[in-house]
């Protein structure tokens, strides 16, 4: 068994292989993971919207030991990751980290948010630091406006930035 605690280091090895095959291979994998994650998220997000997203990431915050602040208001959900355990483990690793490890997160989250007709603004800030800011808006125009403030804006398959 590769322990669930070490999944991200396994993930990192998969990403490095797929990146060597080409960008479309990496994106096909993110979409597969996204489909897998729909089991945990899609109905909840469809049914409860931003509140359902808050519930999901609040559960993840606890279960994945994230140092993360969540803020919900009528217009948006804001997720401020202060210390990301996923990238932290990949950096604390005897195997070499994939340089674009952070990209997978928008890669699986983005397609789900598109499906529930909300709008994701994913600012990774710096790929070498385990921190990011994610904002999910009800209103598309507000999301487009917010994108201007991002330091390193992430796109995802079928929604390149």
């Amino acid at each position, binding site marked *: 068994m590769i322990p669930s*605690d070490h*999944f991200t280091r396994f993930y990192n090895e*998969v990403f490095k292989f797929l990146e060597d095959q080409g960008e479309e291979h990496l994106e096909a994998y993110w979409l597969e993971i996204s489909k*897998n994650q729909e089991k945990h998220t899609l109905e909840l997000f469809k049914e409860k919207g931003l509140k359902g997203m808050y519930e999901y990431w609040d559960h993840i915050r606890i279960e994945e*030991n994230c140092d993360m602040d969540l803020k919900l208001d009528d217009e948006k959900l804001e997720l401020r990751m202060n210390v990301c355990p996923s990238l932290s483990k990949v950096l604390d690793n005897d*195997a070499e980290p994939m340089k674009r490890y952070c990209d997978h997160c928008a890669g699986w989250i983005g397609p789900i948010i598109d499906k529930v007709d909300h709008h994701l603004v994913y600012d990774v800030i710096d790929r070498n630091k385990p921190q990011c800011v994610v904002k999910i808006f009800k209103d598309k125009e507000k999301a487009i406006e917010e994108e201007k403030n991002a330091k390193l804006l992430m796109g995802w398959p079928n929604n390149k930035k």
Partner: protein
Amino acid sequence: MKPILLENLYLKVNKNNLDQKLRYNDGGNVHMDFHGATNTTIEFIINKYGIDTMNDIFKKVGNHVYKDIKDHIKKGNIKMLAKHWQHFFDRENADYNISINDEEIILTVNRCTAYEHVRKLVGNVSPNFCDQTIKTNEALAEDTPYEIKTEILGEAACRQTIRKRT
């Protein structure tokens, strides 16, 4: 002749008799759903690239991610692997035991919670799900004086044995 009972030849491992410092010593909560993502990944890679590619990735996990355990095995310290087993099977609340003697260490997993969690999540577990254990173990032992044999005993059950090569 009086039969020798197997349990007399082995010491059962508990928290107090494996004093090893792990390279990855995770604590906190456990996110079992990652096993579902592992299952998805195994299916995706095998369907798209074939089983050899999947096995190569597991080999990299064994050789690079677990370099520290491998280095210990090379030097003859196989207790580090036993400590790894103990730490993470405890964290995942598996039903298992570890027996140790001078020649070998045997991990017997009676109920693998990773396997069971995936079965609960997706119904059908990949027939290659346990390759993550078999192939990573093979890589850990490669180029060391030891071999690691992984026997699948049934669904969610296996025996893993590390012993000196003959």
